[in-house]
Structure formats: structure tokens, C-alpha cells
């Protein structure tokens, strides 16, 4: 069962459309796998809609002083719009599969929509970046072969892992597909996987590897995440 979910605060910002794309993609992918969070999303959307569109809401206070100029602009706009065809229709969506380690996995819709760069391999770990161009925020697809492990590290910013397939463990326990694992500078961890796994990851700055020889591996942080 999925044990780790996005925080209430993250969900609210997600619903308001205020998060960076990588983060909203991860939350959307989690929601696709988690019925409880889907219900919460629906409830939050209707609540925020209500708040935005009430007659006495924060976006209405100046409504009384609309100018003639604005009225004219709105009228022209409305007339233009109603000349358009109402021609949208729905087509079935073909799920997108991703192949790794002899397996074929269906990717969540929001992740499947992103452009993926090519994979770079470092031992048992393979990583490809999503081309989102969000500055210090880096979104990646990561897969680790059975028995693989990432050296102990902490994060100066945050690291988000959304497990998509397989399983992995760290000092806090084991994770199943759909788990949304948000770590920040207070956490150290050494993730390892017995059966192999596929993850969506998002980090907001370089990692610090803090143990013995792994310190030498510091550049690997930039490579892996």
C-alpha cells in the first residue's frame, strides 16, 4: 500500500497551479496511482474555485469600478469567441510504455508527456534528464538494477523520489510504487534496491555525499540526480 503522499500544503499549491512543473508532474503522477489523493484533489479544486469565484471574493472587490474601456474590450472578446466552432471531441488515449531491464511499464500520463534526454549509466544506476529547463530544479528518470545502491547522501535543498515500479529500501523503511518520498537537508539516506526499480526524481540542488570513500564520489551526485 502507498504510505507516502504529498503534504497538504503541496497539494494546495498544486491545485492552484503555483508549483514548478517538475513538482506538479510528480504530484499528478502520484495522484494517478493514489485514489485517496485524487479525491483530495477534487475536493481542493472545488474549494479553491469557490473561493476564487464568489461575488465577494478576493478577485471581485474592484468589480464595481469596471471601466467603459474594459466593458468594450470584453464585449469584443466575447463576440469573437462565440464565432468559433465548438469542435472539440475526445479520442481514446494510448498509454505510453517504458521498457527497462526486460520489463515494460506504463508511465503515468504527466510523466509520459515530457521529453526525455538520453540515459547515462553509472554502475547499476541509469539516469536520463527530462528537458524541462527549470534552472536548478532537475527532473530525471532513474532506474537501478537489482542489488544497486546509491551512496549515503544528504540534500542541501530537497530531493523528491516517486517510485514508479519495483521497490527500494533506505534507513526509514521500504517503498512501493506510488510512494511520494520528499527529503530535505535534515535527512541522510542510502537507498538500495534488491529487485531493481524505476523512479521519477526531482532535486533542487547538488547532493552531498558524506561518507569516507563516497566523498570522492561527490561528482556522482550531479551525474545521478
Amino acid at each position, binding site marked *: 500500500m502507498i504510505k507516502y503522499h504529498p503534504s497538504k500544503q503541496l497539494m494546495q499549491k498544486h491545485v492552484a497551479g503555483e508549483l514548478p512543473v517538475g513538482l506538479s508532474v510528480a504530484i499528478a503522477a502520484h495522484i494517478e496511482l493514489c485514489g485517496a489523493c485524487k479525491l483530495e484533489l477534487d475536493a481542493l479544486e472545488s474549494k479553491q474555485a469557490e473561493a476564487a469565484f464568489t461575488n465577494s471574493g478576493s478577485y471581485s472587490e474592484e468589480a464595481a469600478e469596471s471601466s467603459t474601456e474594459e466593458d468594450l474590450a470584453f464585449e469584443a472578446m466575447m463576440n469573437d469567441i*462565440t464565432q468559433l466552432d*465548438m469542435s*472539440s471531441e475526445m479520442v481514446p488515449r494510448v498509454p505510453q510504455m517504458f521498457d527497462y531491464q526486460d520489463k515494460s511499464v506504463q508511465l503515468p500520463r504527466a510523466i509520459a508527456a515530457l521529453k526525455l534526454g538520453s540515459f547515462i549509466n553509472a554502475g547499476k544506476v541509469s539516469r536520463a534528464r527530462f528537458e524541462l529547463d527549470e534552472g536548478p530544479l532537475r527532473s530525471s528518470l532513474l532506474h537501478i538494477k537489482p542489488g544497486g545502491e546509491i551512496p549515503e547522501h544528504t540534500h542541501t535543498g530537497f530531493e523528491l523520489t516517486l517510485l514508479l515500479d519495483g521497490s527500494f529500501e533506505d534507513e526509514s523503511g521500504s517503498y512501493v510504487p506510488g510512494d511520494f518520498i520528499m527529503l530535505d537537508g535534515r535527512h541522510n539516506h542510502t537507498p538500495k534496491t534488491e529487485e531493481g526499480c524505476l523512479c521519477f526524481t526531482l532535486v533542487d540542488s547538488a547532493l552531498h555525499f558524506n561518507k569516507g570513500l563516497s566523498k570522492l564520489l561527490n561528482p556522482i551526485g550531479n551525474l545521478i540526480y
Partner: protein
Amino acid sequence: MVSLEQSSDCRTIKGKNVGMQETPSEQLTAALVNVANNADKKAYAYLFSYFAPKIKRFGIKQFGSEAMAMELVQDTMTSVWRKAKLYHQDKGAATTWVYTIMRNASFDALRKVKSNKEDNLSEEIWPLFHDEQVCEKSFKDHLQTNQLKEKIKSLPAAQRDVVVGVYFEDMTQEQLAQHLGIPVGTVKSRLRLALKKLKVELGEQHD
């Protein structure tokens, strides 16, 4: 005996103390259903007059720019019209539906500003329906397309360039402004003039 069937008569709610309501939810939802089923322009005008000023103020808060706020109104209200048929009452109130459309348009606009990307990811992040996607059909009527192309050719050159750039070469108004070396405002006004002219010409022939 208690009937398990839903009441088919919801009209009893309508007409009571309408002016006092904080949010006239039932009226808005009824109007949206009317737009969906009958392409009712009056119902749409009601939705427009309710939502457009609120969307504009949301946009100003979001972008700090009146021009971008107006574009948000345009994008949101265009989708409300064009996608109205996809709305179902059991999917939630009209306010929620319009809010999600506005949020998506705003999200895509912010992404364009921040990363200069026009990948319109919002529809994938907040899909309207889970297993389906919206299919945007362009003109399928070839006769009408040809007729339209003829009319476009007969526009004054300045207006023609703008129409061709935006509708046939998929340039944004900003790109086009840069390309032609004119302000964005001029692109917009030329486009509006051109569309007005085209509408009059095509409309006359359809009547």
C-alpha cells in the same frame, strides 16, 4: 417507500433569492449546460459577464500585467466556449470547471514566461478525463478552407501576414511581432481587423 431515483426536477431551487447569493452556483451550472447542449450565446454571455472580470483580476495578481491578464481571460473563456460539450454536471460545479481551465491556462502562461516553453503541459498534469484526451479538430470542411484561403489572399498585405503567421504557421503573436518588427499591440489590432473582415465576408455568403 423512499425512492432511490434522483429527482428529475431541480427547478424548484431556481428563482429564489437569486440576487442575495454569494455565488449563483445553480444559475452558472445551468447556463454552462445550456451552452453545452444548445450553443446558447445568451447563456454564454451570462457566464462571460460573471467570470471574465474575476479571471482578469486573478491574472493581474498572478502576472502583474494587465495585458497578460486579458490574454488569460481570452484563453480561459475561449476554452469554456469550445470545450463546453465536454462538461458534465456530475463532474462538479461550473465554477470548479472554469477554475480548472483558468488554472491550466495560467500555468501554461507562467511556464512560457519562466522557461520560454510552449509545451502546454497542463492538460497532461490535470487531465479532463483520465483515459481520453481532447482532439482539436481544425477545419475539416475543405470547401470552407479553400474559400477562406481565397478571402485571406484578398486581405491587405499587412493584415494577411498576421493571419497567415498566426493561423497557418503557428507563430505566437510575440514571435510574429518580432519577425515583422512591429509591436505586439499592432499584431493584435491587425488580427482583429482581419478577422472582422473575414467574418463579414464569409458570413454574408452563408446567409
